[in-house]
């Protein structure tokens, strides 16, 4: 009989040496997408098309501001993981590593910019 649990045997394995962590994170954010995407698409859809003053007033309300902030963090990090996976699959060596850094830089910059914009719009 083995005294190791299934989880312990998987930990640290995989080509990324991080076991099932990436997969598990993707599953969680995938489930969260099912809630966030419909809410965000219809919320952003009603915001786009308004004039400047109305957009400012719209994002000063708690629901659109909080929802957009959540979506910015969750969806951008999800898509970053999606892009990372594709890079790991198809781009190897130094270009692959640099691309992963670039995608990370872009993703976190987008998140920071979105949060800054929302704070400025909301306050």
């Amino acid at each position: 009989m083995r005294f190791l649990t299934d989880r312990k045997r998987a930990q640290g394995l995989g080509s990324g040496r991080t076991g099932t962590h990436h997969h598990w994170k993707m599953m969680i954010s995938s489930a969260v997408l099912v809630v966030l995407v419909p809410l965000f698409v219809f919320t952003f859809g009603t915001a786009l098309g308004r004039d400047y003053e109305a957009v400012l007033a719209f994002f000063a309300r708690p629901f659109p501001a909080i929802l957009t902030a959540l979506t910015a963090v969750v969806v951008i990090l999800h898509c970053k993981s999606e892009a990372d996976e594709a890079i790991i699959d198809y781009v190897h060596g130094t270009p692959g590593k640099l691309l992963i850094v670039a995608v990370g830089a872009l993703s976190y910059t987008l998140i920071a910019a979105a949060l800054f914009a929302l704070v400025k719009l909301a306050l």
Partner: protein
Amino acid sequence: MADVNRGNRPLSPFMIGTYYRPQMTSISSIMVRITGIATLGTAFLVVCWLLAAATSPDAFAVVDGLLRSFVGDILMLCATWAIWYHMLGRLRHVIWDLGYLVELDVSQKMGWGMFIGATVLTIITVLVV
């Protein structure tokens, strides 16, 4: 032990090309990845729009004008389809991961469901918004 045969090993054939005939399961899976990466591009546009709104009326007029132009409309339509498709595709992964609906014929039906579902949701979005 050193791999003496490095670089000269048989490789598994790439999914796209003459090696495999197109299958609903593979195409619908590839589209999940493409739409996921495309959504990162959508995020860029949306963040630009938010940042412009937070900056000044002039900046907002420029970015808002771009997003609401004819090209912008087409882009946002594609972006909407992509994010819906990606959401449905990822939902399929969650369902599979929980151990359900992994049979081939059901998986193929779910693939069709993703294409049709994303299109229907996009039409609803256009009608509602």
